């Protein structure tokens, strides 16, 4: 059979994977601080003896969309949104430092500041312990200050400063748990230019219209690949008919 059918098949398989990625983005259309994944197709010629007529398509990741989501007002003090570029440093489940933009924070039973997934939020000197407080404030540069329990508003005390980083988009990558890390390992330096706003959350940056269009496009391209497989089949049938002995 014509090897066309294999080229079409690998194309269809890659399109299905791209469709999975689009579904993932659509499923996370309401996930705070989510960054849309991107993929592109790469030509991969089939090498070997003979004329290299076959070029397979291979879906490869192209990182993620770095554009900002919109800010949603929630009015909760511990909801932080990074305004503009930048990331909040957290301690991932494996103990390493990773970065997130999902700023719905919480104080756990031990008094430590953590994300809703249970990762500890890192300050300049490790995890941030918040003493029992009457009033808590988070400044634009990530400074956490509290009015301790049993004292008046004149005793506003600075607790720690949340580590905010702004590494070059080219040197960060998404981890398999959805957090972001330095691609080459190591940790990013704190950046005083990153701004957070308290009382807001950042929406997912998935562009719904774009995702829907690429979903339709991928579905149609898939049909083209299937049509090619059908044509290869018909070609083979015709060829078989020619050599048939009645």
């Amino acid at each position, binding site marked *: 059979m014509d090897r066309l059918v294999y080229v079409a098949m690998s194309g269809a398989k890659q399109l*299905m994977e791209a469709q999975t990625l689009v*579904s993932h983005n659509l499923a996370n259309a309401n996930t705070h601080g989510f960054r849309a994944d991107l993929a592109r197709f790469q030509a991969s010629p089939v090498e070997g003896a003979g004329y290299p007529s076959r070029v397979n398509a291979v879906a*490869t990741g192209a990182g993620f969309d770095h554009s900002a989501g919109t800010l949603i007002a929630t009015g909760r003090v511990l909801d932080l949104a990074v305004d503009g570029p930048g990331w909040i440093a957290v301690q991932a489940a494996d103990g390493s430092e990773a970065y997130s933009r999902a700023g719905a924070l919480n104080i756990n039973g031990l008094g430590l500041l953590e994300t809703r997934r249970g990762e500890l939020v890192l300050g300049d000197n490790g995890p941030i312990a918040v003493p*029992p407080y009457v009033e808590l404030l988070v400044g634009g540069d990530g400074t956490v200050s509290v009015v301790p329990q049993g004292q008046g508003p004149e005793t506003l005390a600075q607790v720690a400063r949340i580590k905010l980083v702004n590494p070059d988009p080219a040197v960060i990558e998404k981890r*398999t748990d*959805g957090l972001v890390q330095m691609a080459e390992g190591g940790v990013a330096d704190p950046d005083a230019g990153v701004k957070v706003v308290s009382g807001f959350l950042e929406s997912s940056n998935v562009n719904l219209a774009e995702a829907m269009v690429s*979903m339709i496009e991928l*579905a149609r391209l898939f049909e083209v690949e299937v049509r090619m497989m*059908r044509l290869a089949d018909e070609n083979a049938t015709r060829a078989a008919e020619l050599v048939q002995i009645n």
Partner: protein
Amino acid sequence: MDSLWVAKTGLEAQQTRMAVVSQNLANVNTTGYKRGRAIFEDLLYQNVVQAGGLTSQQTESPTGLNLGTGVRVVATDKQFTQGNLITTNNSFDVAIQGRGFFEILLPDGTQAYSRDGTFQLSPDGQLVTSSGYEISPAITIPTGAQAATIGIDGVVSVLLPGSPDPVQIGSLQLTDFVNPAGLQARGENLFLETVASGPPQPGTPGLNGLGTLVQGALETSNVNVVEELVNMIETQRAYEMSSRAIAASDEMLQYVTNNL
């Protein structure tokens, strides 16, 4: 086909969020109710092509392909913002202005915590919740008492017939938690202590950052109807998008079956 299952996680998560929104809207008039919020996270990513894998002896692939597997609801947390106070002039209605919970003794002897201050008197004169659970420490109003007064610091005093001086018969306490959002909602406007909430810290109302008590008032639900309606619209549209993704994947498979 993965995209079907990925889109399914989207439907599930949105459905859970819709349940949270409905629960909030249904409790818009519940005294002391605290609104819930569904928090989403993206599920684990599958490494299809490893970034930096060798494509030949000298070259390596610059980017990998990580496919996400969808979304899930990681938490539905309660937001303990203050509700409005409405005046009822009922002497056993007590609202908390600020932090803190009333401690309630459940029939099984364990403690629960509530911000619903709609208290009643039991047949033997004890202060109980509308479900009939005693508050702790117990307050018993003597028979024949004329008027009961609850101060902002929780002191309960009554006037007895024939005596011009009010008699102090006990005081209401408030209990605070390091992380109120970690409390487990039990229903009946009650919350239970968990590891995440931290241990209960009882104290006198008005001291150590605890709220003060307001007699003759109740705290309304803190649900914001407009916000919930916007959440509902957002949820519904996201649900539609995910179901559209399922339809598209289905059509792709159908095309294969019909045309090959």
